[in-house]
Protein backbone atom coordinates (compact mmCIF):
# COMPACT_ATOMS: atom_id res chain seq x y z
CA UNK A 1 0.00 0.00 0.00
CA UNK A 2 2.87 2.33 0.96
CA UNK A 3 4.64 1.34 -2.20
CA UNK A 4 1.48 2.11 -4.16
CA UNK A 5 1.21 5.53 -2.58
CA UNK A 6 4.84 6.43 -3.21
CA UNK A 7 4.58 5.30 -6.82
CA UNK A 8 1.44 7.39 -7.10
CA UNK A 9 3.33 10.41 -5.77
CA UNK A 10 6.16 9.70 -8.20
CA UNK A 11 3.71 9.58 -11.04
CA UNK A 12 2.19 12.81 -9.74
CA UNK A 13 5.58 14.49 -9.85
CA UNK A 14 6.66 13.00 -13.16
CA UNK A 15 4.49 14.04 -16.03
CA UNK A 16 1.02 12.70 -15.09
CA UNK A 17 -0.24 15.87 -13.49
CA UNK A 18 -2.50 16.58 -16.40
CA UNK A 19 -4.50 13.43 -15.74
CA UNK A 20 -5.30 14.42 -12.18
CA UNK A 21 -6.02 17.94 -13.25
CA UNK A 22 -8.43 16.61 -15.86
CA UNK A 23 -10.23 14.63 -13.15
CA UNK A 24 -10.43 17.70 -10.91
CA UNK A 25 -11.67 19.93 -13.73
CA UNK A 26 -14.16 17.26 -14.77
CA UNK A 27 -15.41 17.00 -11.19
CA UNK A 28 -15.82 20.75 -10.88
CA UNK A 29 -17.65 20.88 -14.21
CA UNK A 30 -20.09 18.29 -12.89
CA UNK A 31 -20.55 20.19 -9.64
CA UNK A 32 -21.16 23.54 -11.33
CA UNK A 33 -24.74 22.79 -12.50
CA UNK A 34 -25.61 21.55 -8.99
CA UNK A 35 -24.29 24.77 -7.45
CA UNK A 36 -26.21 26.77 -10.06
CA UNK A 37 -29.44 24.89 -9.23
CA UNK A 38 -28.97 25.54 -5.51
CA UNK A 39 -28.31 29.24 -6.16
CA UNK A 40 -31.38 29.44 -8.41
CA UNK A 41 -33.61 27.83 -5.81
CA UNK A 42 -32.26 30.20 -3.13
CA UNK A 43 -33.04 33.14 -5.41
CA UNK A 44 -36.56 31.75 -5.97
CA UNK A 45 -37.07 31.45 -2.20
CA UNK A 46 -35.93 35.06 -1.79
CA UNK A 47 -38.40 36.15 -4.48
CA UNK A 48 -41.18 34.19 -2.78
CA UNK A 49 -40.30 35.80 0.55
CA UNK A 50 -40.40 39.22 -1.10
CA UNK A 51 -43.82 38.39 -2.54
CA UNK A 52 -45.14 37.69 0.97
CA UNK A 53 -46.03 41.36 1.37
CA UNK A 54 -49.79 41.71 1.71
CA UNK A 55 -51.50 42.39 -1.57
CA UNK A 56 -55.06 43.37 -2.26
CA UNK A 57 -55.55 42.20 -5.82
CA UNK A 58 -58.44 43.88 -7.48
CA UNK A 59 -59.22 43.84 -11.16
CA UNK A 60 -59.14 47.38 -12.44
CA UNK A 61 -62.23 48.65 -14.24
CA UNK A 62 -62.06 47.91 -17.94
CA UNK A 63 -60.24 44.61 -17.37
CA UNK A 64 -56.69 45.97 -17.39
CA UNK A 65 -54.14 44.19 -15.26
CA UNK A 66 -52.98 46.14 -12.21
CA UNK A 67 -49.51 45.56 -10.70
CA UNK A 68 -51.22 43.74 -7.82
CA UNK A 69 -52.91 41.40 -10.33
CA UNK A 70 -49.60 40.69 -12.04
CA UNK A 71 -47.95 39.96 -8.70
CA UNK A 72 -50.79 37.64 -7.69
CA UNK A 73 -50.57 35.91 -11.07
CA UNK A 74 -46.80 35.47 -10.66
CA UNK A 75 -47.22 34.09 -7.13
CA UNK A 76 -49.97 31.74 -8.34
CA UNK A 77 -47.82 30.47 -11.22
CA UNK A 78 -44.78 29.94 -8.99
CA UNK A 79 -46.77 27.97 -6.42
CA UNK A 80 -48.82 26.07 -9.03
CA UNK A 81 -45.55 24.93 -10.62
CA UNK A 82 -44.68 23.16 -7.33
CA UNK A 83 -47.94 21.22 -7.09
CA UNK A 84 -48.54 17.94 -8.88
CA UNK A 85 -51.57 17.51 -11.12
CA UNK A 86 -53.49 14.50 -9.70
CA UNK A 87 -54.85 13.37 -13.07
CA UNK A 88 -51.60 13.71 -15.09
CA UNK A 89 -48.25 11.98 -15.31
CA UNK A 90 -45.53 14.11 -13.72
CA UNK A 91 -47.06 17.47 -14.66
CA UNK A 92 -47.62 20.42 -12.36
CA UNK A 93 -51.03 22.06 -12.13
CA UNK A 94 -49.38 25.07 -13.75
CA UNK A 95 -48.42 23.07 -16.84
CA UNK A 96 -51.47 20.82 -17.14
CA UNK A 97 -54.43 21.89 -19.27
CA UNK A 98 -56.74 19.40 -17.49
CA UNK A 99 -59.91 20.71 -15.89
CA UNK A 100 -58.98 19.61 -12.36
CA UNK A 101 -55.53 21.23 -12.64
CA UNK A 102 -57.10 24.50 -13.75
CA UNK A 103 -59.59 24.32 -10.87
CA UNK A 104 -56.79 23.65 -8.40
CA UNK A 105 -54.88 26.59 -9.85
CA UNK A 106 -57.86 28.83 -9.22
CA UNK A 107 -58.00 27.54 -5.63
CA UNK A 108 -54.32 28.57 -5.29
CA UNK A 109 -55.09 32.02 -6.72
CA UNK A 110 -58.16 32.54 -4.50
CA UNK A 111 -56.34 31.50 -1.35
CA UNK A 112 -53.36 33.77 -2.12
CA UNK A 113 -55.78 36.61 -2.91
CA UNK A 114 -57.50 36.01 0.43
CA UNK A 115 -54.17 36.79 2.14
CA UNK A 116 -52.87 33.28 2.75
CA UNK A 117 -49.14 32.76 2.50
CA UNK A 118 -47.47 30.31 0.08
CA UNK A 119 -46.67 28.09 3.04
CA UNK A 120 -50.34 28.00 4.11
CA UNK A 121 -51.61 27.20 0.62
CA UNK A 122 -49.01 24.45 0.27
CA UNK A 123 -50.09 23.07 3.68
CA UNK A 124 -53.73 23.10 2.50
CA UNK A 125 -52.94 20.90 -0.50
CA UNK A 126 -50.72 18.60 1.58
CA UNK A 127 -53.58 18.18 4.08
CA UNK A 128 -55.87 17.06 1.24
CA UNK A 129 -53.55 15.01 -0.98
CA UNK A 130 -50.58 14.23 1.25
CA UNK A 131 -46.99 15.13 0.42
CA UNK A 132 -47.46 13.34 -2.89
CA UNK A 133 -48.91 16.62 -4.18
CA UNK A 134 -45.47 18.28 -4.00
CA UNK A 135 -43.41 17.71 -7.15
CA UNK A 136 -40.18 18.07 -5.11
CA UNK A 137 -40.22 16.21 -1.80
CA UNK A 138 -39.57 18.32 1.30
CA UNK A 139 -35.95 17.88 2.42
CA UNK A 140 -36.29 16.04 5.71
CA UNK A 141 -36.33 12.47 7.05
CA UNK A 142 -36.47 9.75 4.44
CA UNK A 143 -36.92 12.36 1.68
CA UNK A 144 -33.31 13.48 2.28
CA UNK A 145 -32.26 10.32 0.45
CA UNK A 146 -33.52 11.82 -2.81
CA UNK A 147 -31.25 14.81 -2.28
CA UNK A 148 -28.25 12.93 -0.85
CA UNK A 149 -28.10 10.00 -3.28
CA UNK A 150 -27.13 11.98 -6.42
CA UNK A 151 -24.37 13.81 -4.51
CA UNK A 152 -23.24 10.53 -2.99
CA UNK A 153 -23.23 8.85 -6.42
CA UNK A 154 -21.22 11.76 -7.82
CA UNK A 155 -18.67 11.56 -5.02
CA UNK A 156 -18.48 7.77 -5.35
CA UNK A 157 -17.94 8.16 -9.11
CA UNK A 158 -15.21 10.72 -8.57
CA UNK A 159 -13.60 8.45 -6.00
CA UNK A 160 -13.74 5.56 -8.42
CA UNK A 161 -12.13 7.63 -11.18
CA UNK A 162 -9.47 8.90 -8.74
CA UNK A 163 -8.62 5.34 -7.72
CA UNK A 164 -8.46 4.27 -11.36
CA UNK A 165 -6.21 7.20 -12.25
CA UNK A 166 -4.01 6.32 -9.31
CA UNK A 167 -3.70 2.77 -10.64
CA UNK A 168 -2.86 3.92 -14.17
CA UNK A 169 -0.22 6.32 -12.95
CA UNK A 170 1.16 3.86 -10.38
CA UNK A 171 1.53 0.94 -12.80
CA UNK A 172 4.66 2.17 -14.61
CA UNK A 173 6.62 2.45 -11.34
CA UNK A 174 5.86 -1.18 -10.45
CA UNK A 175 7.03 -2.47 -13.79
CA UNK A 176 10.27 -0.93 -15.07
CA UNK A 177 9.96 -1.57 -18.85
CA UNK A 178 6.33 -0.47 -18.83
CA UNK A 179 7.33 2.64 -16.89
CA UNK A 180 9.84 3.52 -19.56
CA UNK A 181 7.16 3.15 -22.24
CA UNK A 182 4.68 5.22 -20.25
CA UNK A 183 7.24 7.98 -19.71
CA UNK A 184 8.04 7.91 -23.42
CA UNK A 185 4.32 8.24 -24.21
CA UNK A 186 3.97 11.06 -21.64
CA UNK A 187 6.95 12.84 -23.14
CA UNK A 188 5.53 12.41 -26.60
CA UNK A 189 2.24 13.93 -25.36
CA UNK A 190 4.05 16.94 -24.02
CA UNK A 191 5.91 17.71 -27.18
Amino acid at each position, binding site marked *: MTEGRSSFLRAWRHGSKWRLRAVLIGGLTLLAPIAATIAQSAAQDARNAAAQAPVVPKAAPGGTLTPADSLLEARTSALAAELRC*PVCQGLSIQDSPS*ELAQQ*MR*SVVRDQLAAGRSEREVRAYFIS*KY*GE*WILLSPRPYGFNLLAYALPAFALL*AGMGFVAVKVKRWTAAPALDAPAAATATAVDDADHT
Partner: protein
Amino acid sequence: MNWRRSTLAVLGSVPLIALFAWGLTRDPSEIVSPLPGRPAPDFTLGVFAPGEGGLMRPVGDTMALAQMRGQVVVLNFWASWCLACRDEHTDLSAAARMYAGRPVQFVGVLYNDVASAGSQWISQMGGQAYPSVLDPGARTAIDFGLYGVPETFVIDGNGQVAYKHTGPVSAALLARKIDSLLALPSTAIVAPASDNPR
Protein backbone atom coordinates in the same frame (compact mmCIF):
# COMPACT_ATOMS: atom_id res chain seq x y z
CA MET B 1 -6.98 -6.42 -0.80
CA ASN B 2 -9.59 -8.72 -2.36
CA TRP B 3 -11.36 -9.03 0.97
CA ARG B 4 -11.41 -5.29 1.30
CA ARG B 5 -12.75 -4.86 -2.20
CA SER B 6 -15.43 -7.49 -1.66
CA THR B 7 -16.50 -5.94 1.66
CA LEU B 8 -16.73 -2.51 0.02
CA ALA B 9 -18.75 -3.91 -2.89
CA VAL B 10 -21.16 -5.64 -0.49
CA LEU B 11 -21.47 -2.58 1.76
CA GLY B 12 -22.16 -0.44 -1.28
CA SER B 13 -24.63 -2.69 -3.05
CA VAL B 14 -26.66 -4.20 -0.20
CA PRO B 15 -28.35 -0.93 0.86
CA LEU B 16 -29.12 -0.16 -2.79
CA ILE B 17 -30.60 -3.61 -3.40
CA ALA B 18 -32.59 -3.29 -0.15
CA LEU B 19 -33.91 0.12 -1.26
CA PHE B 20 -34.96 -1.19 -4.67
CA ALA B 21 -36.51 -4.30 -3.11
CA TRP B 22 -38.55 -2.09 -0.80
CA GLY B 23 -39.56 0.03 -3.80
CA LEU B 24 -40.88 -3.07 -5.58
CA THR B 25 -43.29 -3.71 -2.70
CA ARG B 26 -44.94 -0.32 -3.25
CA ASP B 27 -47.54 0.54 -5.85
CA PRO B 28 -46.71 4.00 -7.20
CA SER B 29 -50.26 4.46 -8.48
CA GLU B 30 -51.68 3.91 -4.99
CA ILE B 31 -51.73 7.21 -3.14
CA VAL B 32 -52.68 7.13 0.51
CA SER B 33 -55.20 9.81 1.43
CA PRO B 34 -54.42 11.78 4.58
CA LEU B 35 -58.14 12.32 5.21
CA PRO B 36 -59.31 9.16 7.06
CA GLY B 37 -59.26 9.89 10.79
CA ARG B 38 -59.54 13.64 10.25
CA PRO B 39 -62.58 15.94 10.28
CA ALA B 40 -64.34 15.92 6.91
CA PRO B 41 -64.21 19.24 5.05
CA ASP B 42 -67.54 21.02 5.37
CA PHE B 43 -69.66 21.68 2.32
CA THR B 44 -72.96 23.32 1.41
CA LEU B 45 -74.06 22.25 -2.06
CA GLY B 46 -77.26 22.57 -4.08
CA VAL B 47 -79.37 19.54 -5.01
CA PHE B 48 -79.88 18.97 -8.77
CA ALA B 49 -81.18 15.37 -8.68
CA PRO B 50 -83.77 14.77 -5.96
CA GLY B 51 -83.49 11.04 -5.29
CA GLU B 52 -86.46 8.80 -4.63
CA GLY B 53 -89.06 7.99 -1.97
CA GLY B 54 -88.17 8.80 1.62
CA LEU B 55 -84.64 9.83 0.66
CA MET B 56 -85.89 12.55 -1.70
CA ARG B 57 -84.66 16.15 -1.35
CA PRO B 58 -86.18 18.94 -3.47
CA VAL B 59 -84.12 20.26 -6.37
CA GLY B 60 -82.46 23.55 -5.38
CA ASP B 61 -82.38 22.59 -1.71
CA THR B 62 -78.93 22.84 -0.11
CA MET B 63 -77.25 20.00 1.72
CA ALA B 64 -74.62 20.90 4.30
CA LEU B 65 -72.38 18.43 6.09
CA ALA B 66 -72.73 20.43 9.30
CA GLN B 67 -76.45 19.63 9.31
CA MET B 68 -75.79 15.88 9.11
CA ARG B 69 -74.07 15.53 12.48
CA GLY B 70 -75.07 12.32 14.23
CA GLN B 71 -75.60 10.59 10.89
CA VAL B 72 -73.27 8.38 8.93
CA VAL B 73 -72.72 10.17 5.61
CA VAL B 74 -71.83 8.32 2.44
CA LEU B 75 -70.43 10.86 -0.02
CA ASN B 76 -70.02 9.52 -3.54
CA PHE B 77 -68.29 11.57 -6.26
CA TRP B 78 -69.47 10.62 -9.74
CA ALA B 79 -69.88 11.92 -13.29
CA SER B 80 -71.96 11.02 -16.34
CA TRP B 81 -68.74 10.59 -18.37
CA CYS B 82 -67.32 8.11 -15.85
CA LEU B 83 -67.61 4.49 -16.98
CA ALA B 84 -66.65 2.96 -13.63
CA CYS B 85 -69.51 4.92 -12.01
CA ARG B 86 -71.96 2.72 -13.92
CA ASP B 87 -70.55 -0.36 -12.18
CA GLU B 88 -71.26 0.92 -8.68
CA HIS B 89 -74.52 2.76 -9.35
CA THR B 90 -76.89 -0.15 -8.56
CA ASP B 91 -74.97 -1.08 -5.41
CA LEU B 92 -75.02 2.49 -4.10
CA SER B 93 -78.75 2.87 -4.64
CA ALA B 94 -79.40 -0.56 -3.10
CA ALA B 95 -77.33 0.33 -0.03
CA ALA B 96 -79.12 3.69 0.31
CA ARG B 97 -82.52 1.93 0.23
CA MET B 98 -81.30 -0.66 2.72
CA TYR B 99 -80.42 2.03 5.29
CA ALA B 100 -83.50 4.20 4.69
CA GLY B 101 -84.99 5.20 8.06
CA ARG B 102 -81.68 4.82 9.86
CA PRO B 103 -79.24 7.64 10.64
CA VAL B 104 -77.45 7.24 7.32
CA GLN B 105 -77.38 9.89 4.58
CA PHE B 106 -76.24 9.13 1.04
CA VAL B 107 -75.15 12.10 -1.08
CA GLY B 108 -73.97 12.01 -4.69
CA VAL B 109 -71.63 14.80 -5.81
CA LEU B 110 -71.48 15.51 -9.54
CA TYR B 111 -67.83 16.02 -10.47
CA ASN B 112 -66.81 18.21 -13.43
CA ASP B 113 -70.07 17.69 -15.25
CA VAL B 114 -73.25 19.60 -16.02
CA ALA B 115 -76.57 19.06 -14.26
CA SER B 116 -78.45 18.17 -17.46
CA ALA B 117 -75.95 15.43 -18.36
CA GLY B 118 -76.10 14.16 -14.78
CA SER B 119 -79.91 14.02 -14.75
CA GLN B 120 -79.98 12.30 -18.14
CA TRP B 121 -77.49 9.72 -16.91
CA ILE B 122 -79.59 9.04 -13.80
CA SER B 123 -82.71 8.41 -15.89
CA GLN B 124 -80.72 6.19 -18.28
CA MET B 125 -79.48 4.17 -15.31
CA GLY B 126 -83.03 3.70 -14.00
CA GLY B 127 -82.93 6.32 -11.25
CA GLN B 128 -80.83 7.11 -8.20
CA ALA B 129 -82.25 6.38 -4.75
CA TYR B 130 -80.54 9.31 -3.01
CA PRO B 131 -80.06 13.00 -3.88
CA SER B 132 -77.12 14.34 -5.87
CA VAL B 133 -75.62 17.82 -5.58
CA LEU B 134 -73.58 20.10 -7.85
CA ASP B 135 -70.00 21.04 -6.99
CA PRO B 136 -69.16 24.26 -8.87
CA GLY B 137 -65.43 24.58 -9.65
CA ALA B 138 -64.85 21.17 -8.02
CA ARG B 139 -64.12 23.03 -4.76
CA THR B 140 -65.55 20.27 -2.58
CA ALA B 141 -63.81 17.61 -4.68
CA ILE B 142 -60.46 19.35 -4.10
CA ASP B 143 -61.31 19.77 -0.41
CA PHE B 144 -61.68 15.98 -0.28
CA GLY B 145 -58.41 15.47 -2.17
CA LEU B 146 -60.13 13.84 -5.13
CA TYR B 147 -57.99 12.14 -7.79
CA GLY B 148 -60.77 10.96 -10.04
CA VAL B 149 -64.19 9.36 -10.06
CA PRO B 150 -65.68 7.33 -8.61
CA GLU B 151 -64.48 7.95 -5.08
CA THR B 152 -66.57 7.34 -1.98
CA PHE B 153 -66.09 8.75 1.51
CA VAL B 154 -67.81 7.40 4.60
CA ILE B 155 -68.10 10.04 7.32
CA ASP B 156 -69.04 9.17 10.89
CA GLY B 157 -71.58 10.87 13.15
CA ASN B 158 -68.90 13.20 14.52
CA GLY B 159 -68.07 14.51 11.07
CA GLN B 160 -64.80 12.61 10.77
CA VAL B 161 -63.77 10.81 7.60
CA ALA B 162 -63.84 7.15 8.57
CA TYR B 163 -63.08 5.57 5.22
CA LYS B 164 -62.18 6.45 1.66
CA HIS B 165 -62.78 4.12 -1.27
CA THR B 166 -61.25 4.68 -4.69
CA GLY B 167 -63.00 3.06 -7.66
CA PRO B 168 -66.38 1.31 -7.83
CA VAL B 169 -67.71 0.43 -4.38
CA SER B 170 -69.84 -2.62 -3.55
CA ALA B 171 -72.99 -2.72 -1.39
CA ALA B 172 -71.38 -5.37 0.84
CA LEU B 173 -68.34 -3.20 1.55
CA LEU B 174 -70.49 -0.16 2.23
CA ALA B 175 -72.72 -2.15 4.58
CA ARG B 176 -69.67 -3.35 6.51
CA LYS B 177 -68.34 0.19 6.95
CA ILE B 178 -71.74 1.70 7.81
CA ASP B 179 -72.59 -1.06 10.29
CA SER B 180 -69.27 -0.61 12.09
CA LEU B 181 -69.96 3.11 12.46
CA LEU B 182 -73.62 2.68 13.51
CA ALA B 183 -72.47 0.30 16.24
CA LEU B 184 -70.37 3.06 17.80
CA PRO B 185 -71.83 5.75 20.03
CA SER B 186 -72.01 8.96 18.00
CA THR B 187 -69.99 10.97 20.53
CA ALA B 188 -67.06 8.52 20.54
CA ILE B 189 -63.97 9.53 18.65
CA VAL B 190 -63.58 6.73 16.16
CA ALA B 191 -60.42 5.45 14.55
CA PRO B 192 -60.32 5.09 10.75
CA ALA B 193 -62.76 2.32 9.87
CA SER B 194 -60.34 0.96 7.29
CA ASP B 195 -58.32 -0.44 10.21
CA ASN B 196 -61.25 -2.14 11.92
CA PRO B 197 -63.92 -2.97 9.36
CA ARG B 198 -66.13 -4.64 11.97
